[in-house]
């Protein structure tokens, strides 16, 4: 029996802030103090509040220590673990209020963790911990008590929809595949889309890193439902921790007889392999993903045929996203009514969002569908830092759109987001404040999709390039008002004509910013100004008469564009200025302004 349990976050954010060294230091300190028998150290998956990582939680007190460094470990050991006294200076402070337990924080209070339930709770490298938290109970229930059709009906009744972006009813997808006539080999496949590629989104990664067995169990359930005996997890090679934990998990599941031939002696075979993607965004598109698993260049193919009929290696295939799978076992165990009781009319359950951008609590949050954007940003996310004003939230990654302040109170679900010109997508949520130029934001996302286009179809390969060129023209001050109409036309053309979802949604960031922030476009075109002060070609820095002639700006200018004698007002040579803004940052007298 351990006196204390120490959870150390091993998620990506904390890991890159040396949480592995913190873990090692704990091991060393505990051994040195002779309390090895009393303390259980657990390296967990992501807790979600990445902004304050590395995170350490010590039970039974549930003390929530944030921004812990390796040098803090001896104090945590001697004070908390030996003397039983909290180390106040490391305890997380929620809006200046010292909050001792994780569950008390604003960040966690409004969350409902279903897909993320085990992340930050269990050791993902130990199957016994997963089993201790009801792991593989759903699989056993399915194999012993349910017919495949009952499994599908349960998933249908729960209202679970694909978390990868499009929101297709998962149960329906399974039913299509179950009903699909396989070829003479009788082979069907189950695949998992772990090719998370939206900039800023990392929920799938966190699930794979923090609760890999949840995905394995759900895939086995899906395989049983559709009649498959082989599965593939397609995961980005850029997720090494996820890949290694998934490998460990698959190995342990095989060892326990939960994967492989004749699972648990119940006559069901299911094996699982990992396929690594090499980072092409388009490989998150289902047909491109399967083409890539087949060993070919990852490019989408026309549909129909749909994967449910002809998917991987032209066999009937079910492909779901990681987060979708992470809900499955609980729906089986707690019943579809439980899941359907959360959310809105058409969007049931919860959704994980990756909060990023101009927000205090960057990290991973899981909320019931129907929660408002305001709750997510202001309560859970802690609002905008530095007293700045909220301007827009970008959801759905490069395929999504920007939601302006007037829609902050719209309940988040698939339909509502679509109605206001964005999409749920995989759940990236990037917050923008008054310092963000919306034309520049549109450019950023479009540049991403343009670069990630596979180059197969004309609208995406050339259309996005031309669209981006319009944006470049506008942000460099050469835009004309007629460009806006041409851009809009081109946007709708691309949406209507591109081969796959990547191209069809690529214009969304442009269309949604044109819809809500057209005045910013017009300011760029007519006034030749960037209201947010981002687009360099439309900026100028000027030195006011209040300049004291301290020469600091001139000494820091990287291109020697500033001249002036000591104690005289200085001057910027606009033809040399590269608009880096260093002068303004350095000026101690606020004598330099950006116009």
């Amino acid at each position, binding site marked *: 029996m351990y006196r204390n349990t120490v959870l150390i976050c091993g998620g990506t954010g904390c890991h890159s802030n040396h949480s592995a060294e913190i873990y090692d230091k704990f091991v060393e300190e505990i051994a040195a103090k002779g309390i090895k028998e009393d303390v259980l150290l657990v390296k967990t998956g992501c807790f979600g509040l990445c902004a304050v990582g590395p995170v350490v939680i010590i039970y039974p007190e549930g003390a929530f220590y944030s921004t812990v460094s390796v040098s803090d470990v001896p104090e945590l050991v001697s004070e908390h673990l030996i003397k039983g006294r909290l180390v106040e200076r490391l305890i997380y402070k929620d809006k200046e209020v010292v909050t001792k337990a994780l569950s008390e924080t604003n960040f966690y209070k409004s969350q409902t963790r279903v897909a993320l339930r085990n992340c930050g709770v269990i050791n993902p490298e130990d199957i016994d911990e997963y089993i201790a938290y009801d792991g593989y109970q759903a699989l056993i229930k399915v194999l012993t008590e349910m017919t495949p059709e009952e499994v599908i009906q349960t998933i249908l009744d729960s209202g679970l929809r694909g978390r990868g972006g499009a929101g297709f009813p998962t149960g329906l997808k399974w039913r299509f595949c179950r009903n699909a006539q396989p070829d003479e080999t009788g082979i069907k496949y189950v695949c998992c889309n772990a090719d998370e590629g939206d900039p800023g989104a990392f929920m799938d990664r966190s699930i794979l890193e923090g609760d890999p067995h949840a995905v394995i169990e759900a895939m086995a359930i899906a395989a049983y439902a559709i009649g498959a005996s082989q599965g593939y997890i397609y995961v980005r090679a850029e997720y090494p921790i996820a890949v290694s934990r998934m490998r460990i998990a698959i190995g342990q599941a095989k060892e326990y007889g939960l994967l492989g031939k004749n699972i648990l002696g119940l006559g069901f075979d299911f094996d699982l392999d990992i396929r690594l993607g090499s980072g092409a965004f388009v490989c998150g598109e289902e047909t491109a993903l399967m083409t890539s698993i087949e060993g070919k260049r990852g490019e989408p193919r*026309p549909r129909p045929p749909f994967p449910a009929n002809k998917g991987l290696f032209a066999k009937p295939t079910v492909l779901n996203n990681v987060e979708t799978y992470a809900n499955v076992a609980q729906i089986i165990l707690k019943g579809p009514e439980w899941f359907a009781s959360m959310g809105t009319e058409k969007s049931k359950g919860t959704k994980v969002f990756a909060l990023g951008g101009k927000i205090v609590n960057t990290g991973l949050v899981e909320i019931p569908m129907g929660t408002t954007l305001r709750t997510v940003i202001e309560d859970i996310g802690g609002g905008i830092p530095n007293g700045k004003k909220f301007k827009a939230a970008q959801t759905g990654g490069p395929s999504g759109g920007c939601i302006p302040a007037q829609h902050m109170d719209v309940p988040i679900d698939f339909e509502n987001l679509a109605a206001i010109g964005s999409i749920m997508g995989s759940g990236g949520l990037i917050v923008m404040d008054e310092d963000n130029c919306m034309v520049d934001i549109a450019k950023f996302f479009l540049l991403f999709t343009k670069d990630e286009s596979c*180059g*197969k*179809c*004309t609208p995406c*390969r050339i259309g996005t390039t031309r669209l981006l*060129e319009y944006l470049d023209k506008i942000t460099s001050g050469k835009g004309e008002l007629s460009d806006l109409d041409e851009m809009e036309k*081109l946007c709708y053309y691309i949406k209507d004509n591109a081969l796959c979802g990547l191209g069809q949604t690529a214009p969304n960031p442009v269309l949604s910013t044109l819809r809500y922030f057209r005045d910013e476009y017009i300011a760029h075109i007519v006034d030749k100004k960037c209201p947010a002060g981002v687009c360099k070609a439309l900026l100028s820095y000027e030195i006011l008469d209040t300049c004291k002639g301290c020469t600091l700006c001139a000494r820091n200018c990287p291109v020697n564009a500033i001249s002036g004698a000591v104690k005289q007002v200085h001057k910027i040579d606009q033809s040399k200025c590269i608009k880096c803004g260093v002068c303004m940052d350095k000026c101690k007298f606020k004598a330099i302004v950006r116009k």
Partner: protein
Amino acid sequence: MEEIKMVNLKINGQDVSVPAGTTILDAARKAGIKIPTLCYLRDINAIGACRVCVVEVKGARSLVASCVYPVSEGMEVTTNSQKVIEARKTTVELILSDHDKNCLSCVRNQNCELQRLSEELGCDAKRFGGAVNTFDIDATTPYIVRDNNKCILCRRCVAACKNYQGLAIIGTNSRGFATHVGAAFDKDLADVPCVGCGQCINVCPVGALHEKEEIDDVIAALQDKSKYVIIATAPSVRIGLGEEFGYPIGSNVEGKMVTAMRKMGFNAVFDVDFAADLTIMEEGTEFINRLNNGGTLPMLTSCSPAWIKYVEHNYPDLIPNLSSCKSPQQMFGAICKTYYAEKLGIDPKDMVVVSVMPCTAKKFEKGRANQSAAGVPDIDIAITTRELAKLIRRFGLIFNELEEGKFDAPLGISSTAGLLFGATGGVMEAALRTLADVLEGKELDKIEYTAVRGTQGIKEAVVNIAGKDVKVAVASGLANAKVLMDKIRAGEADYHFIEIMSCPGGCVNGGGQPIKSAYERNNLDIKALRAGAIYAADSKSELRKSHKNPIIKELYDNYLGEPNSHKAHKILHTSYEARKKY
């Protein structure tokens, strides 16, 4: 027989009934509606990439590519709404925005599908400005030039290489706007196991691929009065050439072709069909020797230079199976520069032999090792059917008005067995005609071997000759050849003699033949139409067996001795080398 399920739909309000699985494109064609296409090629390239063939389907979220979208019951399709027309126009305008529009000096000027589409759709070629990709032109091989500045990424060449030839030498490299077609790791075409068949050229809708032209060399040779310039045409050239001058597919224009060449000023206008007859003598004798003396079997024909290169790269272990005979082109050049030069008393160095071929790989073959019977290359210049047409135009000859001419003697005299070489199965049929007579020791009435005719990829037949069953096979298209080679390698084939032609359908469909648009390729059986002209000419001929060609007899009697003699070997046979793949 299984009943074919019919599907009823409406296209532009018109009721259409087509078998289930039909695409919207084909259903529309049946209803008399031509939907424009660009990337689509029946059987080999249904990828929905270019988006030119989009149509509106009621209830669909976006426009759909009709070339890949199957019909369904009750579907309502509109092929000509303003939305569709605008979309197609924008697509082509976008393609034009990243295309080297130097049309006036393009090899495909006036024979370009993009040009035609642009005109049909009323495109503004300058609507979109912006960045344009620039690529180095790959002219590293003697046969194919790739100019990616003109490539529109329809991937038809990629599909031809992969699906016709089973090679996949080229694919798409890079991504997004930088996407381009190239060999693995963007290697030069000369550094990869490309066989030079030119099928990629034939399917290219624009000027991104063309043969390395030798037209200027021909003109220069004709100007040089110190040279004795011979021109000779391969069997298929007379069948394809007319298409360049408005004749329907499958027209035999031998007479006008001969006159045109004569009017250009060649010293002699000969026929490679003569050398095809000679090939039958040599190859037939080689086969009999192998059959009777326990030689390596099955024997594989060696007429098709892309096929030879294919074996050298991919099946070097099967090189002993290849006939050691030079191809008809090379035999022709070799006889010109030995026998005929001696006869005329001309130094072979002062002779220029121009071959006209339906083939691009011949440009490679003429430069191979051990192809110089007289110490100088057997063939100096190898041009394609297309290049001959250009020459005719450049010389201002009004082709359609030319008189019918006849090839010069002696090397223009041939049997129509030689002509058969142009169609898949033709070499085999010509060989069987001679083998049967030779082995039976008498002239047989049986002339036509229909089992080896037809455009299917692989044909097999057992022919009883002099009491012995000879098992033969014929394949065209290297993807089909591969099937046979793998069988041989695995020891599962008991054929005696196999004819392989690299190009699907044989030389009539060679990489140097007139280029047909995708619309023609998709809706006509070009291979069969052209082959039909060959069989028609043969059926009317008096001289249908190679060994009956009087000039062949004279050549052996007065010069070579007998087939496979030491001298014949020196002049008419060659050797092969294993080549690396990458």
